[in-house]
């Protein structure tokens, strides 16, 4: 039987629908003519069908009770120590780190130095400066995204976050913005935001990063 990778290449491109059985007409025609791809398709579809019948592992009643008790106990202890207040998010270390970074950036660009308004397109920091500000913890968290970093595939996720750092001129704007970040990316927002910053890097920075991650 002749070897053929056409079906596999299509799957690897990630262009199929919600199932591996959703193929474009051209590929369906190819399957009719190509025995290798036809057999591969049959095997893959069969295994996918079986996988779709699997049930997830769920906790038993004792485990559920243990989880519930653990959560409630922690929350109770937490509230006794801190108390719930609208300022609680401000105590979050990620918020504090983000705020420190925002303030440092604002100071760096001298937005507090004069009465003039900050222009909406203040210049961004150089990639070299950003790179030196990324600390060890951030690098550790970035390892989750190693593939995207190496492939520079994260660019599509870039948004105006860095712009916001450089244009926010009032404390409450900064607070609102930081809260949005905390919400959007749950507990990993800080690192992802940094990743967005990283999309601004030039080739030298990527080389540094690759060297670090390797």
């Amino acid at each position, binding site marked *: 039987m002749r070897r053929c990778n056409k079906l596999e290449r299509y799957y690897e491109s*990630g262009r199929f629908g919600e199932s591996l059985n959703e193929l474009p007409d051209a590929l369906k025609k190819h399957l009719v003519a190509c025995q290798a791809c036809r057999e591969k398709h049959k095997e893959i579809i069969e295994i996918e069908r*079986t996988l779709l019948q699997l049930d*997830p592992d769920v906790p038993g009643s004792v485990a559920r009770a243990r*989880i519930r008790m653990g959560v409630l106990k922690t929350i109770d202890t937490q509230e006794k120590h801190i108390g719930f207040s609208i300022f609680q*998010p401000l105590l979050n270390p990620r918020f504090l780190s983000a705020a420190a970074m925002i303030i440092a950036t604002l100071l760096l660009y001298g937005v507090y130095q004069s009465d003039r308004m900050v222009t909406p397109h203040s210049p961004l920091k150089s990639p070299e400066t950003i790179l030196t500000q990324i600390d060890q913890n951030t690098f550790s968290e970035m390892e989750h995204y190693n593939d995207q970093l190496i492939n520079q595939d994260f660019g599509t996720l870039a948004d105006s976050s860095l712009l916001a750092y450089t244009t926010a001129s009032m404390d409450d704007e900064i607070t609102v913005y930081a809260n949005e970040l905390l919400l959007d990316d749950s507990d990993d927002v800080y690192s992802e935001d940094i990743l967005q910053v990283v999309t601004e890097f030039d080739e030298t920075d990527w080389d540094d990063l690759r060297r670090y991650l390797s």
Partner: protein
Amino acid sequence: MIEAISVNIPESRLIQGAQSGDAEAFNQLMELHMDRVYAIAVKIVKDSSEAEDVTQEVFITVYNKLSGFRGDSSFSTWIYRVTVNRALRHLKKLKRSKPADDVSIFDSQVDHRPSPEDTAVEREKSQLLRDAMDRLPEKQRTVLSLRVEHALPFKEIASIMGRSVGGVKANYFHAVKKIQSAFSKGVS
């Protein structure tokens, strides 16, 4: 498949209630999502006791951050994203603290309970598939679990994992391919 939640009170009302400090509303939210949070966690950390810890951490995080939740994404996407992040972080810690040799012992600790109607053959088949799934790299394992066990669409999986839809689909294909290969070896 874990069905999403059937209670009398709509989830949005429970979220609002929990946000305004209603402990019972938070309890109900926890009940609604516990199975799926645990199921995702156990697939990633591959240990039932560690998955319990991750599940607890997830709900504590949710409790602490719920006041800021404004529904930009769906609540379930948000909570599953927290779950994946927490579980991956937990797994990283475990890998640091456990020597590599212990990993295989560790793998066998998940209690995969087949449904009662499974025949012996089906049970064996399911077990082979689950064993093969457990041996996949974490990203592929997570994508595959979210797609096949939790029936989440690729777009939502991509959102949960903070990745592109195409990348997630490619991961899915590679996972299915590896399982197929492992499965055919196991059967033969």
